[in-house]
């Protein structure tokens, strides 16, 4: 199969102002510090592929996901959906084809709406009759394993956590999207419910060929669901490659540190990396991991390593020339 990108981000960055720019700041031309949440990142998701985006909180993974779903406009760089560059003027055209599932369904579903209306809301612009919408609602609900006749007029508060997340998934797939961003969809769920939702997501992926960007901090979940994984650290992608390869032979020292810090039922002795996640307002010079890296060299402190191919994967580290 030829890899055909569904969505591509090219050198995208998203900067935020660290404080509000008020009248005084404008008059006196005070500099407001800038948070570089995502800094010159490339990422591609191919048709029918599951890419896991893994990183710790504050590394920019959610911001990147929001840019890919047009909820956030990149400060620089471009995002290409099936060969077409997205911009302010045409982004609404892509919205039916790109969907998003959030972490907490209790917050992302309107508590006052009936489930039928929640699920068919993305179809609003398609000028469908009520009967057509109802049949699409019924289909979507059966795909996620819920009985539509029991749920059509219930509200999110009547459901359990697992059921709510199923409804959020039904809402995401009802418009038959080509690309779905899942932002920590299972981290609010109990272990047994988490596996039900993961099984469901895999089934939908296999049956309909949706491409997923699965944002998570849970390594075991990333390993289960993804074909390819991208590791983010402080606004940068530091390593990306086939999941099995990255998980068993991590190249970047940060990936190595991250994997050795994850508790598993195989490994009792955790060896966490020293130090704190760096500030994004004033990131370290050169490689952003260098203050915490056990293999730090002179070049790491001054020059930022680019993401380069090395043995079938891409890694941004001076150790691999």
């Amino acid at each position: 199969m030829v890899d055909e990108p569904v969505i591509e981000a090219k050198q995208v960055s998203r900067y935020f102002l660290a404080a509000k720019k008020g009248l005084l700041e404008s008059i006196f031309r005070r500099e407001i510090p800038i948070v570089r949440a995502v800094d010159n990142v490339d990422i591609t998701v191919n048709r029918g592929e599951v890419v896991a985006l893994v990183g710790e909180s504050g590394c920019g993974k959610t911001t990147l996901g929001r840019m890919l779903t047009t909820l956030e406009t990149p400060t620089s760089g471009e995002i290409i959906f099936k060969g077409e560059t997205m911009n302010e003027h045409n982004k609404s055209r892509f919205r039916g084809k790109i969907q998003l599932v959030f972490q907490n369904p209790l917050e992302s579903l309107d508590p006052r709406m009936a489930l039928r209306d929640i699920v068919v809301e993305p179809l609003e612009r398609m000028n469908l009759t009520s009967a057509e919408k109802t049949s699409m609602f019924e289909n979507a609900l059966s795909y996620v394993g819920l009985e539509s006749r029991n749920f059509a007029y219930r509200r999110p508060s009547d459901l359990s956590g697992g059921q709510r997340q199923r409804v959020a998934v039904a809402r995401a797939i009802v418009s038959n999207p080509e690309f779905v961003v899942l932002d920590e969809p299972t981290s609010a769920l109990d272990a047994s419910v988490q596996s039900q939702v993961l099984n469901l997501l895999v089934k939908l992926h296999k049956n309909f060929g949706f491409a997923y960007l699965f944002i998570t901090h849970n390594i075991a979940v990333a390993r289960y669901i993804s074909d390819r994984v991208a590791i983010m650290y402080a606004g940068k992608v530091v390593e990306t490659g086939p999941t099995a390869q990255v998980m068993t032979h991590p190249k970047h020292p940060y990936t190595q540190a991250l994997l050795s810090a994850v508790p598993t039922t195989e490994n009792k002795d955790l060896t966490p990396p020293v130090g704190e996640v760096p500030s994004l307002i004033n990131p370290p010079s050169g490689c952003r991991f260098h203050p915490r890296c056990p293999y730090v060299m002179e070049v790491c402190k001054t020059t930022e390593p680019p993401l380069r191919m090395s043995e079938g994967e891409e890694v941004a580290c001076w150790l691999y020339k």
Partner: protein
Amino acid sequence: MTAQSTELQHATLQVHDLSIVYKTIYGELKAVNKLNLTIGRGESVAVVGESGSGKSTLGLSIVRLLPGNARYSEGGINLDGQDVEKLKDRDLTRMRGSSVFMIFQDPLNALNPVKRIKDQMFEALKTRNEREGGSADKESGQRELVESLRSVRMPDPELILNRFPHQLSGGQIQRVVIAMGLLMRPKLLIADEPTSALDVTIQAQVLKLMRDLQREYGMSILFVTHDISIAYAISDRIIVMYAGEIVEDGSTEKIIRKPLHPYAQALIASIPKKSKDQGDLTTISGSTPNMLNPPSGCRFHSRCPFVMEKCITNSPNFIENDDRRVRCFLYGG
């Protein structure tokens, strides 16, 4: 018999037939049902279960911080030789500082937002000194605070001491709280999902630190979590709770490698270990029971793949099997 009595003398915590009831508008909800548990000195025990299993209620009942609508309906808790239920308010305050220290899931609520870290930590030091009859002058106190922050791997402890809680990250606050616990040197540390707000690398640091403390000071740990992998990293012994009852209790290694109770088996099997191309993940059918009206017989029977006639009507007792106790008819009874 002698082995048993020495064990009891060395127990830091003994929970005997404990039942906790919440009064709700729908009726009485029994969150913990006739629970028996002993934790020895220097032992690290993890309580594992899903939401609603009563594991947090158990932790809160030991420090007597249950909400107003909760009631100790049966049994008792003996912590370090004291009957927790009968303590007067003054003794309770003393107990919370010296015998037991609790770390909560959300560290932001654990600190006073308008006081500097230094002053709040100094309070912990003062409490300990009052208890031990030592004195706390500012200078040696300051040194000890810096030392305790260093031991939780906090960078720039001198700077941190002069900050307010809102100036620190979640991981930093959680480490300040743990450092305070360190200063108090409690006999039992109760931690209720202390790392779920933290990133994996910080989580690993915190878990490692608690493990070190347990070894160095002989502190006992009761660690409440829903994550089996974390339980494996922190504990010597695991207690699996389901619907207010302990269903299995045994050494960590044995439970993880060969769980006996069907619920424990399902819980451990549901950890994703493979890739999606190798097949579906194991799930537990059904949903957690309604505790207002718990199922008859074994509380897990409606979701159990090995359910038998008697599971529906009779409630199984603990059975000793392979060095642990398990509440299941599959192993006799």
